[in-house]
């Protein structure tokens, strides 16, 4: 067999194998999606079949009873602001750390890096927020999420910024620009891919998080979408079809974001994580 034929055959085999493997992912997800349209009894079989009837009413019911409209807005608000705040502060900090190669910036880098390692201590964080006087507010949650994501973001940004030639800065400075000009007018446009990556990473982790709203948002009307699952999760009754509908709706926003931003994830990671 010629070389190219061999290669083609190999490609086909690999592709077939991968498609088979991908079933392990597709099948459970399909079970969930199909289940969300079934009746409570039908869904209990947990097998891969189409629903007898497509009960769109499940979705309406979940939307109403789960207060999903409100939860959606809460989620968007919290996640959105956290993402913006993380991007703004982390890119700025990473800019300085990456450019200013002193011992201090090395120390600062390590300081931020520890954030990747250290586990979060919920109780003491509550104490701090309480001491600051705004426990229970959405603001506190936004700050907490930001603080949790700064470490990874600084890490990504500094890697990326290091790959932007300093020469660009030099030219700007020669022309009389100051640090802010360089940052905003030169660097910021160049780090758009990494901004996208960071935005997506933060979005996905904050959107899906359930522990922090539980402890820090005392008013259940400020809760986010994933927590709406608990509305159907009472200890004494579980309607799987409704739960699945809830899960599908909660996952949709992230899924849509992901589909649009797919290419940025890989390119952003390339630039920031791999080359750094």
């Amino acid at each position: 067999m010629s070389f190219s034929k061999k290669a083609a055959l190999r490609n086909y085999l690999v592709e077939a194998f991968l498609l088979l493997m991908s079933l392990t992912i597709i099948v459970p997800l399909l079970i969930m999606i199909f289940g969300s349209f079934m009746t409570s009894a039908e869904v209990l079989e947990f097998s891969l079949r189409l629903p007898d009837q497509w009960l769109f009413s499940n979705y309406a019911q979940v939307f109403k009873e789960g207060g999903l409209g409100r939860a959606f807005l809460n989620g968007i608000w919290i996640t959105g602001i956290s993402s913006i705040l993380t991007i703004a502060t982390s890119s700025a900090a990473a800019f300085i750390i990456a450019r200013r190669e002193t011992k201090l910036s090395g120390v600062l880098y390590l300081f931020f890096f520890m954030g990747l390692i250290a586990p979060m201590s919920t109780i003491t964080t509550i104490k701090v927020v309480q001491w600051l006087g705004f426990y229970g507010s959405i603001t506190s949650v936004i700050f907490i999420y930001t603080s949790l994501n700064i470490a990874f973001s600084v890490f990504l940004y500094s890697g990326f910024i290091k790959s932007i030639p300093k020469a660009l800065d030099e030219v700007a400075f020669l022309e009389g620009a100051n640090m802010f000009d360089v940052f905003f007018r030169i660097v910021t446009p160049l780090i758009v891919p990494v901004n996208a990556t960071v935005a997506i990473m933060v979005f996905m982790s904050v959107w899906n998080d359930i522990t922090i709203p539980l402890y820090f948002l005392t008013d259940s009307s400020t809760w986010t979408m994933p927590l709406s699952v608990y509305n159907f999760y009472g200890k004494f009754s579980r309607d799987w079809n409704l739960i699945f509908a809830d899960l599908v709706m909660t996952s949709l926003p992230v899924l849509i974001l992901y589909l649009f931003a797919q290419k940025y994830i890989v390119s952003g990671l390339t630039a920031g994580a791999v080359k750094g």
Partner: protein
Amino acid sequence: MKLSKSLYSYYLIWPALIIYSVFFVLPAIIGLYYSFTDWRLDRDAIRFIGWDNFQRIFTDKTLLLALKNTLIFAVITVIGKNVLGIALAVALNMRLKSRNFLRAIFYSPSILSVLVISIVFTPMLRTEGTINRLFESVGLGSLSQAWLTDPSIVIWTISALAIWQHTGFQMAIYLAGLQSISKDYYEAATIDGAGSWKSFLNITLPLLLPAININLMLTLIGGLKVFSEVFVLTGGGPGNASQVVGTIILRAFGEGSWGLGTAMNTLLFAAVTLISIPLLIFMRRKEVTE
């Protein structure tokens, strides 16, 4: 011309530094203090008790089991996610027709909340659940297990599920790494008569080192800090069979032993640091010499 360092003033670091320090570092430091006290839910007075909490931790059978489980989980997921991640990345870097579709599919579980995964999989992992039924239908009935209720395998099941969910993320990073390797190397190797396996070993792997570095760090740290996967799937059960350090800390809080719980948190932090920092330095060094 050397740029004056002072052109880059430290002002821009302040916002990140403040938020990070106040909401993350400060609680951690306070936690450190409480680790040495007998802070409890039901007592207002707090006494300094030195190393007592730590002593108690190291003599607790259940905690030692949790440690063992955490290590098992960490090792399995590090190996699983990285080996599979590289394999998938290499496969999906080839010119396949459904490449983009496949990449999206394999990445998709990692964007879902772990709650979603557990809710969907728990019923399927029952003894008469979908997975076992599948095995039986292809004649592999002997492979059927009590996936989540057999104490000897439950932590392996949880690890497998974690690999299923998150390998896509590692794959994405490896893909990024692969795409930055210049094709010239491969062409040169082919000209020299190297087979694909040889070029993989001698070109791909070494040049992938930065990506391997990052992924090892991320998966190792994530594995040691595991909490939600276990909590949502089994709550540490049955009994205490699948407890990990993360869930044991929650148990301590639930019992009202908050000083003890904070001490465990501190210990976890120390352990993760001690394991990952040397690894980081080692890998950095390896990278530089390449």
